[in-house]
């Protein structure tokens, strides 16, 4: 996969981008291995079914990684340097959900080549994650 390369000069307040993805069982397994977070809510179907969620919940930081993918691959892409990310996990994301990751530029700081974007991760029905990121666009 090749990162997009949106020039800082071409970005303006209100610009947005998005992508769709589905987190699979295998993604969850790989993320647990990578992070070391084997909490049964993410890895044990039997346990997870007995919780209020009724099944395995995607790690919050895996969703955070989708935000990283958005910044690094979509907007601004190649020249991105993520400085700060704040996320609120409003509802659980489940394996197999079709997730739309969307970001919109709400502020562009010329002096330090910095963008502030509002981020959302949602299914067709509901908002699961909202937050903000601050990204520097390198030369």
């Amino acid at each position: 996969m090749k990162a997009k390369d949106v020039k800082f000069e071409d970005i303006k307040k209100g610009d947005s981008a998005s992508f769709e993805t589905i987190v699979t069982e295998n993604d969850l397994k790989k993320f647990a291995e990578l992070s070391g977070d084997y909490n049964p809510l993410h890895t044990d179907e039997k346990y997870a079914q007995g919780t209020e969620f009724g099944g395995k919940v995607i790690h919050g930081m895996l969703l955070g990684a989708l935000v990283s993918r958005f910044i690094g691959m979509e907007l601004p892409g190649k020249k991105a340097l993520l400085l700060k990310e704040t996320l609120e996990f409003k509802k659980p994301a489940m394996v197999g959900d079709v997730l739309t990751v969307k970001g919109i530029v709400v502020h562009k700081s010329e002096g330090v080549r910095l963008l502030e974007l509002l981020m959302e991760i949602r299914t067709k029905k509901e908002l699961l994650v909202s937050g903000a990121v601050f990204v520097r666009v390198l030369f």
Partner: protein
Amino acid sequence: MGYFLLCGYKLIMEKFNEIASKSFGIPLTDIKDSLTPKDISEWDSMNYLLFIAELEKQCNISFSMDEVLNAQSLGDVRKALQTKI
């Protein structure tokens, strides 16, 4: 300077102090123009960039790259801001 201009100026300077206080995690009463990165442990490159970006956003101004890179103290940033209001 007219009364309304003076009020606007004062408000922006108060805003500057609030943003500096929040960005660098120091009490509002400790904000001084003489403060430099050596005096403020939270003044790292990331917090400085976020500080400048927040000033631009809240005060609806833009700094040049030179102004951002040449500022050595809070007072230098304030001076750069003062030229824009």
